[in-house]
């Protein structure tokens, strides 16, 4: 299969170098469009006034914190099953951005919760499971950095990523399974969205922007991990950014 050639670090380094600038450009354009829709076109919410505009970063950050964790679990599974060298590198490249989005989800949620619920934080199923996700990210990062041997670090990290992924459906369905202060999903696969069309569009465009940013960041970051691990390989010495 043609894509297997990218399992070689040298190929992935070159491919990642072509992808990340495009992904960052896309993220910038989509952010501009999303913020324009969200702040200039979308009307105020009839219940929440202007405060609801936090949704255009809160929901994308929350969604991406879950998507990135699932992506990490996918790479972890691939690494454990097929022993591909780049899998662990991709898992590690994704983790910091996932942790950032998870933190931003909790932060923007607190700033939205205070004016609407009267509390920065409640020990509710949705919020608590998202906090556990942040600890999973931080645990993954701490564990992989604490182990010097890259292969052992990858394997240990992959186990955390795979075990922790059970938390993702718990976050997603928490608003259905438990009584919670957090509102239910505004967008779901089973019913039409309970939002005005332009608000929904702004949110989806911002989600794609965050998605493109995460892709750009992961591919930018994985190149450094490749260089560190392949530092004695001949091809690294031939790179124009190294040979000065």
């Amino acid at each position, binding site marked *: 299969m043609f894509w297997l050639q990218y399992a070689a670090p040298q190929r992935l380094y070159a491919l990642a170098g072509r992808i990340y600038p495009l992904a960052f450009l896309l993220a910038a354009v989509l952010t501009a469009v999303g913020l324009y829709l969200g*702040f*200039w*076109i*979308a*009307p*105020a919410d009839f219940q929440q*006034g*202007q*405060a609801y*505009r*936090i949704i255009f*970063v*809160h929901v994308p*950050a929350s969604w991406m914190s879950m998507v990135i964790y699932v992506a990490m679990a996918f790479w972890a599974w691939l690494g454990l099953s097929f022993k591909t060298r780049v899998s662990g590198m991709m898992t590690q490249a994704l983790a*910091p*951005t996932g942790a*950032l989005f998870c*933190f*931003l989800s909790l*932060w*923007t949620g607190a*700033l*939205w919760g*205070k*004016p609407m619920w009267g509390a920065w934080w409640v020990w509710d199923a949705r919020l608590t499971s998202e906090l556990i996700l942040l600890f999973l990210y931080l645990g993954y990062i701490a564990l992989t950095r604490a182990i010097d041997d890259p292969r052992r670090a990858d394997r240990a990290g992959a186990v955390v990523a795979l075990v922790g992924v059970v938390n993702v459906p718990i976050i997603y369905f928490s608003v259905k399974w438990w009584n919670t202060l957090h509102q239910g999903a505004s967008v779901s696969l089973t019913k039409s969205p309970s939002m005005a069309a332009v608000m929904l569009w702004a949110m989806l465009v911002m989600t794609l922007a965050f998605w493109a*940013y995460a892709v750009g*960041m992961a591919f*930018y*970051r994985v*190149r*450094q991990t490749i*260089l*560190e691990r392949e*530092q004695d390989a001949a091809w*690294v*010495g031939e790179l124009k*950014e*190294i040979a*000065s």
Partner: protein
Amino acid sequence: MSWNSWEEFWDMGGYAFFVWGSYGVVFAGVALELWMAVRRRSAVLSGLRSHREDDYAGDAP
């Protein structure tokens, strides 16, 4: 949506602290992550250059 003035826009219907506090931290977080990633790249590249130079120095007669 049309804002009547910039003051009205920045005020966010009285929710300025919450709305701009959210967006400010999101952009600060992204900026910090980008800065750290760029810094790591230059550290890795300069580390590799000196690593290679050490090797060549060792090989020299």
